[in-house]
């Protein structure tokens, strides 16, 4: 009981951090200016937030080495997606890919799927490409693109960390149900994003 109570402040903080998103989609035409804009881009849309948190949740759920490997793979492949966007290479159906990432990753958490680490990394890497391309599309328009890139990479990493922190609730049986319910909620939200994107 004491251990659960000790975890409450951490959980409350992470829940509050997750609720600061203001709109469903972050990919609207707007002027991106600096680090703050880049930082706010992933957390300004629920589609990004939920997918990033789901990566951390799933990693925590899978345990070592996935708990650090997935948050390591995601930014790297995301940067590749961003580089493709900067180079002007079009990745089709980016919004659909992002919506699917929330669905698939949410279901993986909800159904307690434990594939081999290589498979999990591949799934995460595939979706990271779409997220990176979405961020990278707005990057060249930024007044300070380098600072913008730093901002969204850092924000993405912190969202993973939030997911990992929430994922530690799986140490307790009740926490496991909470995490799996969270995964289901993410998957349902992903279906809503997909219906809007199609």
């Amino acid at each position, binding site marked *: 009981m004491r251990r659960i109570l000790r975890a409450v402040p951490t959980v409350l903080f992470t829940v509050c951090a997750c609720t600061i998103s203001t709109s469903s989609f972050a990919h609207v035409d707007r002027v991106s200016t600096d680090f703050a804009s880049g930082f706010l881009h992933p957390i300004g849309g629920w589609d990004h937030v939920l997918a990033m948190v789901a990566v951390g949740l799933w990693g925590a759920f899978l345990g070592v080495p996935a708990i*650090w490997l997935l*948050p*390591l*793979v995601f*930014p*790297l492949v*995301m*940067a*590749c997606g*961003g*580089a493709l966007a*900067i*180079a002007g290479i079009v990745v089709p159906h980016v919004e659909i890919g992002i919506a699917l990432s929330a669905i698939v990753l949410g279901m993986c958490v909800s159904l307690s799927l434990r594939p081999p680490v290589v498979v999990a990394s591949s799934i995460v890497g595939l979706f990271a490409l779409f997220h990176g391309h979405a961020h*990278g599309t707005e*990057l*060249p328009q930024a007044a300070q*693109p*380098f600072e913008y*890139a*730093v901002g969204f*990479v*850092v924000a993405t*990493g912190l969202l993973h960390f939030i997911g990992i922190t929430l994922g530690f609730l799986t140490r307790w049986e009740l926490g496991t149900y909470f995490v799996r319910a969270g995964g289901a909620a993410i998957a349902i939200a992903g279906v809503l994003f997909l219906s809007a994107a199609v």
Partner: protein
Amino acid sequence: MTTTVDLLGLDSLLIPISVLAHALEPGVAGGYVAMIHSLSETPVPLVLLTIGLLIGFQKTGNVPQALLALASGTLIGLDIVMANGMIFNPEPPLLGTSLAAGVLVGLGTTLPRTILITYCLIVGFFYGAFSAPGLISWAEGIYYAVGIITGLFIVVGASVGAVKTLKQLALPWFSIGVRIVGSWLAAITALALALALR
């Protein structure tokens, strides 16, 4: 051939850059400006931080040789550009080598001494070429060169020291944390490289 060169972004390497890459202040002021360059001019702090993490991750016995190789390569790069002017664009290869460093940090790779020293020589060369003030004599640019080397050791030395110190504390999350930071730096560097090749 031209199309291939364009597609690979290699034309950005072939275009001669203007002779004076960095404005040169006279005397000690020039040295101070050069030192600040290492701490502020995009993407130099990112590159040096990544290299510092990589060197810090290596065996302690190889660190002095790696730092010496880095400084030597920097002096060689400075010398060549100061003697010949900016005959190529050093930013893309500098970012490319930094990207490799970030990936190696993310993978937690320990390099053999010979490879580490060779790598540091190459990175140092591109860093020196990138930082050089252009076509001037050593008599005019000595303070600037001293400033560049000083700035190099400030950032790289601090990174190496931080890694070694944290490693000594034997914190359970240390290795994973540094590897995740390495992946973040690699992701940012990849985007910076895409912007440089655009």
